């Protein structure tokens, strides 16, 4: 009886943390008023060695333009399956995209980096517009992009 109780207590202790292995993370990307059409944005994650891990969001629904998100395209080979179910509309100049995703806790403080690639019609491509290490310390701290992104933050 006592061993059964101990086993049950152990299994409960082991499985309960599993329920808390993900948390909602809100990512806000505010664009400059660059005076062009809507921007395509690819948000994706690389591991400590720089290898592609996965995509978090694709702003822009036409896959034929994905080649202009050049880093994302190079890392994924333009595989549309990478962004199935996490794709939305492109983002207009001066506007702000706010995405809330249920993300694995294992992504934070483990050497992963979140990248944003940007591209605008008839304007210059901006691969790696943002590259921010995913740490609890960086949460809530705005990061400025290189060309189109006025500010990017993630809040947990």
């Amino acid at each position, binding site marked *: 009886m006592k061993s*059964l*109780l101990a086993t*049950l*207590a152990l*299994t*409960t202790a082991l*499985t*309960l943390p*599993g*329920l808390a*292995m*993900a*948390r*909602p993370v809100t990512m806000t990307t505010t664009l400059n008023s660059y005076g062009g*059409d*809507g921007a*395509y944005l690819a948000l994706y*994650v690389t591991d400590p060695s720089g290898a592609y*891990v*996965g*995509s978090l*969001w*694709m702003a*822009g*629904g*036409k*896959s*034929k*333009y994905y080649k*202009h998100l050049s880093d994302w395209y190079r890392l994924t080979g333009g595989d*549309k*399956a*990478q*962004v*199935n*179910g*996490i*794709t*939305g*509309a*492109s*983002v*207009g100049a001066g*506007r*702000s*995209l*706010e*995405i809330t*995703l*249920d*993300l*694995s806790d*294992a*992504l934070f403080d483990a050497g992963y980096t979140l990248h944003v690639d940007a*591209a*605008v*019609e*008839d*304007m*210059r491509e901006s691969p790696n517009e943002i590259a921010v290490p995913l740490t609890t310390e960086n949460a809530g701290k705005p990061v400025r992009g290189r060309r189109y992104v006025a500010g990017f933050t993630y809040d947990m």
Partner: protein
Amino acid sequence: MRKTLTLLVATTALTAAIGLPAWSAMHTPANTGPAPFAAVFDDAAQTLPLILASDGDDDKDRHDRNSSRRGHDDDDEEEEEDDCDAEEDDDCRSGAGNPAPAGTVAPPQNGLFGNGTPPQVKVN
């Protein structure tokens, strides 16, 4: 004592039922198919109807101006895109080949997402 035991049994069953599929889904490498426990959910996800994207936000302008996103030197590619204007074939109209929009299918099992709240998006 019996009450404690009952409570532990119930919590174990509950956490195992919820936690195992979540854990399984989160640890499946990308493009390797569903994990054993996550397969329960994946089967259901695959039966969802595919709703093709129709983001008419700026496509008309794009086609009318006979230009592609970001100027590049590959004329063949541009002509290929422009074919959509001229022929209006099924591929061009249906948006075939575009990824499924958020909310129509589950996010990819790339180990980044939990099984909690589906993606929410807002543009201000």
